[in-house]
């Protein structure tokens, strides 16, 4: 029987699992989390039932239906707590997994050799650095969201949400649902740029009106909670001794450079900052999949990557939100499962929501003037505590334009997060410091032979390798 392994149980991976089963294949669905749903449908654990959890979610019924049907299907194996740490493509695809409690020392190793692999590993927030962004109490928007939805924790009582993109709205909404006072949502782009991005050829948005309604819903929520939405403004510094006590808010020019003299100090006990999303590419890169110039996995009309047998769906192929992730997952799962053609409805939805994603990028993309809020002592690489000054200095003195040599000189990007937080920022800073303004790179920042930190003991212990039939054609 044909076997499909799917990595990531967010909207894209869940849709792919259903579609691969629809095509008749057996499915293994892996996620490092112990819950299904990914980022969008992050929810309370079973030990915390409630009457109206649905109120925290969009499309909750759809999620429950998808989850329940996959859980009930004997030909779907769901591996919770399954962290994929390497992918090899020497002779067919091999997927290496450790299974067990997150970062535990006693996890079991498993290897899968499926007929087809679907990567649906999603994205995480991209947060640009600013002075004080490493203080406790400064969170990504996603963190506030995850803690609100997954734990019912309010990250603060007086909170500013700042950055760029429509994601700031659900973050503010979630905070309000936890009883936090959201002082303001600050969007760095100007109102003009947002209106131009959203309203160009507005008829194109009509088929995406479900998404439009969701955003209108958020906007209505903001009005109800009286949350001011201000454009052309940013949090440019956070202050405090052991935790954030206040932030500096500045007005920005169209290129995001702060307007001198516009700074205002605001007392807060938390700030949530997100400037968009970065795809989680390490597995796709390990599988040898080609990336686009913008840094996403390149796929064909069937969501097939450049590596035979490896499909990709969801945010790793482009940031487009939940509906696009689901449409792509349906197409990827169907083809990975062995079907040919079809999936007309998913293809249509994919087209509509791709257009929607382009508008978001046009309206809310990062502008280069943000480096104007950095100071020399601003930490850029959080893990290795490398400052902006050190990076600029290294770029000047070594005339280095390669990411690899800059990393080795400064250690930026070599810490335990493996460059996930600062990789793109270091690239941008180096690009700005280099003469041509472009980075000559001999090493992808996403290349991590071991995609996730592992304990040596786990690798070395022979008793933890599960012997079971996973090779091609045996299941």
């Amino acid at each position, binding site marked *: 029987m044909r076997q499909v392994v799917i990595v990531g149980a967010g909207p894209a991976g869940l849709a792919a699992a259903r579609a691969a089963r629809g095509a008749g294949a057996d499915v293994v669905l892996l996620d*490092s*989390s*112990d819950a299904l749903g990914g*980022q969008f449908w992050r929810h*309370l*654990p079973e*030990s*915390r*039932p*409630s*009457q*109206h*959890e649905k*109120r925290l979610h969009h499309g909750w019924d759809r999620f429950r239906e998808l989850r329940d049907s996959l859980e009930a299907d004997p030909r779907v194996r769901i591996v919770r707590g399954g962290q994929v740490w390497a992918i090899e493509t020497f002779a067919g695809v091999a997927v290496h997994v450790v299974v067990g*409690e*997150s*970062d*535990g*020392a006693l996890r079991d190793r498993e290897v899968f050799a499926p007929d087809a692999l679907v990567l649906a590993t999603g994205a*995480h*927030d991209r947060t640009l650095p600013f002075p004080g962004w*490493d*203080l*406790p*109490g400064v*969170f*990504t928007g*996603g*963190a*506030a*969201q*995850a*803690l609100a939805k997954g*734990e*019912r*924790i*309010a990250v*603060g*009582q*007086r909170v500013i949400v700042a950055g760029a993109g429509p994601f700031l709205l659900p973050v503010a909404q979630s905070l309000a649902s*936890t*009883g936090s006072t959201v002082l303001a949502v600050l969007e760095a782009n100007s109102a003009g740029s947002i209106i131009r991005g959203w309203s160009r050829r507005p008829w194109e948005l009509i088929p995406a009106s479900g998404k439009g309604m969701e955003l209108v819903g958020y906007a209505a929520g903001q009005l109800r909670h009286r949350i001011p939405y201000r454009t052309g403004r940013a949090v440019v510094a956070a202050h405090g001794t*052991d*935790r954030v006590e206040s932030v500096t808010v500045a007005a920005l020019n169209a290129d995001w450079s702060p307007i001198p003299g516009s700074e205002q100090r605001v007392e807060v*006990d*938390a700030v949530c900052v997100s400037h968009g999303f970065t795809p*989680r590419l390490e597995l796709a890169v390990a599988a040898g999949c080609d990336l686009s110039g913008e840094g996403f996995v390149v796929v064909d009309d069937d969501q097939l990557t450049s590596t035979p047998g490896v499909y990709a769906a969801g945010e790793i192929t482009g940031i487009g939100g939940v509906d696009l992730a689901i449409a792509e997952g349906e197409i990827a799962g169907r083809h990975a499962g062995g079907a040919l053609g079809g999936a007309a409805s998913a293809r249509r939805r994919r087209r509509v929501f791709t257009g929607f994603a382009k508008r978001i990028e046009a309206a809310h993309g990062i502008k280069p003037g943000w480096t104007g809020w950095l100071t020399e002592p601003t930490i850029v690489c*959080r893990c290795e*505590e490398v400052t902006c000054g050190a990076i600029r200095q290294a770029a000047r003195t070594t005339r280095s334009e390669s990411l690899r040599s800059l990393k080795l000189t400064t250690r930026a990007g070599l*810490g*335990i*997060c493996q460059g*996930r*937080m600062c990789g793109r920022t270091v690239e941008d800073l180096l690009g700005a410091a280099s003469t041509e303004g472009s980075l000559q790179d001999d090493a992808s920042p996403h290349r*991590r032979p*071991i995609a996730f*930190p592992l*304990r*040596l*003991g786990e690798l070395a212990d022979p008793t933890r390798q599960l012997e079971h039939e996973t090779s091609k054609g045996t299941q």
Partner: protein
Amino acid sequence: MGARAVPAGEDPIRPDAAGTVTIRVDGLEVSGIDGQSIAGVLMASDRLELRRTARGDRPRGVFCGIGVCFDCIVEVNGVHDVRACQRRAHDGDTVITTGDGARRSGAVS
């Protein structure tokens, strides 16, 4: 004032009664709700600092909340580098937040 758990009585989702867990953090007992992460248990009592960095001795807490930044690493039951935002708290867990776990790491990367 700062971080806190939404009080059950005020929560619009109307939670049912939930069990508790008790863990020991730097020698002191802390109680939380069954199913919470270690970070969640600590944040519910407005504790944000989870470690200090090796070089600058700077405080760090939860940043990404989804397991990618590794800012929240603590020691749990003698094992270093456990992401507090990802690990669910179990009764009797012993958590140590002092020191920079990443420094003593046995992790390969």
